[in-house]
């Protein structure tokens, strides 16, 4: 084959390979140069990577369909193709942005002082941040199930050491639990991919989408892959590893884990169900991820409200928000059970994922700053924090506001799209879950706000200085989340989505949510709010809160979690087959 005839895909496709490889090249260069070069290499890579993502976005805007790149000129099923549709481009851009924000924040923790040698933390952090970035880009653009398996493993191997950067026994235990459970998830995923190859002779997603038949091998494969990916995403009740891992890591690492790493496996579930499986999935089976998501929202939120430490509160809020990310699956189906609302569901999911990535990164960073400045992050003792650390506290609250779907946040638009789908398809029950999830989020914003704005009993002594850049990076990410829907509507989504955003009825939603959130806090939080609320109903509700905590502890043990994993796979397969 002469070079001229080589089939390589669409215009600008080579950028996809660049997006994947640049971070890895940076990681290798950082490993070689070491020492004080580590942050420098990362800071060179960040604008470069962002530039590549922007170039991809512009190439995608000029193209008619998805960008495609055939590596080595070999087309699937023999070769591997990289593809970027709208969802992938949005995720590429968002991850590049969040990595830049987190990188700016982490300079405070892992930037090396002049004259200091290479430290373990800086070495691991910068190299693994780049590795996570490359692996995520690969997840977004790869169309091959086996390459995606390798990408997921890359993500796990890069994520696990981030959990135990602090090196304490507890974080090592969290990391060990994480890797064992995640490996189990990967092996189930690989098993599903193997079955698909055995059935259809290809691992390429578009080819599979055309070949899949509603038959046992497809049901088994998709059920196994779905369950494995749920485990890697930490969807309730498979979240045993998440709270200690995300709560125990240094803030800069928690932000990476919570904002970015879990999005990889989640994005793959999205791809599988909406792009690969349309011929196999059915509306009944799609209720499963959303039902688990609803359970995640309730359990994660209640347990979050009962945490005593800010970082653990944020970690449990991630458990709840992961649930929110799975509500879109049944809402891709219309009332007749056909997948006609797929585009809307995908848009809503990607928006929600980006909103969560930006807001959650900002919130973890804010929690880390509070810890660094005060020397603790006990929620009860946060009085005066707003005055001492205005920017960090603002980042936390703006992030919370964005997550609960205040206009014009990305979460607002995502919720609006899903509410529309729920109404169209007649699945009214998800309306309640969508609004309830927002109320719970409002709950922990209220919980924290009530404390940080109080006057401290004694003036806060010996505050440690924290980097201003770090604070502004946190606030920047949170604000980006709050303004996300403006960017989305300016970009690919129809502008009339925001037409009524500032109407009275939409704006009135906010105080309603806050009110509901305050009620939830009063009923469920561990310590009564300000002494005044509570009342007669409290003991009963507090008992409910304790019950949720006990349930959470139970499913976070190894054997129940593993059994749940298999049960999820079995239920999913059964629902698909019954279809």
């Amino acid at each position, binding site marked *: 084959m002469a070079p001229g005839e080589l089939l390589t895909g669409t215009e600008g496709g080579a950028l996809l390979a660049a997006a994947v490889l640049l971070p890895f090249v940076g990681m290798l260069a950082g490993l070689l140069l070491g020492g004080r070069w580590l942050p420098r290499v990362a800071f060179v890579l960040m604008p470069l990577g962002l530039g590549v993502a922007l170039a991809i976005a512009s190439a995608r805007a000029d193209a008619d369909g998805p960008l495609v790149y055939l590596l080595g000129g070999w087309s699937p099923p023999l070769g591997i193709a990289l593809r970027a549709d709208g969802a992938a481009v949005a995720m590429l851009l968002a991850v590049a942005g969040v990595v830049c924000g987190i990188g700016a924040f982490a300079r405070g923790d892992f930037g090396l002082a002049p004259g200091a040698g290479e430290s373990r933390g800086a070495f691991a952090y910068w190299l693994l941040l780049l590795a996570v970035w490359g692996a995520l880009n690969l997840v977004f653009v790869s169309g091959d199930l086996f390459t995606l398996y390798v990408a997921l493993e890359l993500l*796990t191997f890069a994520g696990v050491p981030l959990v*135990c950067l602090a090196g304490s026994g507890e974080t*090592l235990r969290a990391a060990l639990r994480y*890797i064992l459970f995640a*490996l189990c998830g990967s092996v189930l995923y690989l*098993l599903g991919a193997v079955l698909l*190859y055995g059935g259809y002779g290809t691992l390429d997603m578009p080819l599979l989408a055309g070949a899949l038949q509603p038959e046992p091998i497809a049901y088994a494969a998709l059920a196994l892959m779905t369950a494995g990916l749920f485990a890697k995403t930490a969807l309730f009740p498979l979240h045993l590893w998440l709270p*200690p891992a995300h709560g125990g890591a240094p803030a800069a690492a928690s932000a990476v884990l919570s904002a970015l790493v879990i999005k990889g496996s989640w994005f793959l579930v999205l791809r599988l169900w909406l792009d690969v499986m349309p011929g196999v999935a059915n509306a009944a089976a799609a209720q499963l991820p959303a039902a688990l998501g609803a359970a995640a929202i309730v359990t994660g939120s209640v347990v979050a409200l009962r945490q005593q430490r800010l970082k653990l509160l944020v970690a449990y809020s991630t458990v709840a928000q992961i649930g929110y990310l799975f509500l879109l699956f049944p809402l891709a189906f219309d009332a007749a059970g056909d997948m006609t609302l797929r585009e809307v569901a995908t848009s809503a999911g990607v928006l929600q994922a980006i909103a969560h990535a930006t807001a959650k990164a900002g919130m973890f960073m804010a929690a880390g700053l509070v810890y660094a400045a005060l020397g603790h992050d006990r929620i009860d003792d946060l009085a005066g924090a707003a005055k001492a650390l205005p920017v960090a506290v603002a980042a936390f609250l703006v992030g919370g506001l964005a997550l609960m779907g205040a206009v014009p946040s990305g979460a607002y638009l995502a919720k609006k799209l899903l509410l529309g789908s729920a109404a169209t398809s007649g699945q009214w029950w998800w309306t309640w879950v969508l609004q309830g999830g927002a109320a719970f989020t409002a709950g922990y914003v209220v919980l924290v706000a009530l404390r940080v704005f109080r006057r401290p009993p004694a003036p806060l002594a010996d505050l440690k200085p924290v980097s201003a850049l770090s604070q502004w990076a946190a606030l920047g990410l949170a604000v980006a989340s709050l303004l996300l829907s403006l960017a989305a509507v300016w970009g690919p989504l129809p502008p009339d989505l925001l037409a009524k955003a500032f109407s009275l009825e939409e704006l009135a939603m906010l105080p309603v949510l806050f009110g509901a959130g305050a009620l939830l806090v009063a009923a469920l939080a561990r310590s009564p709010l300000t002494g005044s609320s509570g009342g007669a109903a409290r003991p009963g509700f507090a008992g409910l809160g304790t019950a949720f905590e006990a349930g959470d502890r139970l499913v976070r*043990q*190894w054997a129940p979690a593993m059994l749940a994993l298999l049960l999820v796979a079995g239920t999913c397969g059964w629902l698909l087959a019954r279809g």
Partner: protein
Amino acid sequence: MTIETLFALTACALVGIGLYGLIAQPHPLRKLVAFNIMGSGVFVLFGALAKRGAAAGLPADPVPQALLITAIVVAFAATAVTVALLVRLIEATDSASLADAPPRE
């Protein structure tokens, strides 16, 4: 029964055996061994499917076989990371328990 069906069925059983060990054995090292058995079951299944796909004069479909080499190496990397973590955990805490530390009030 053809040899590839025999090995494919064996592979399914290996996956089940590994899964049981992964759930029931408390020690992380035992879980890791069980994980490796489960993984090898998946690999053997892939290999049996590759043998089933023998065509065009090749004794087996070479694509799965090449992927298997990658997968075996990745599984080794996973084992190496896990072992290093486990040994470090034992050094740091004198315990290999995966259970949460008792809640501190």
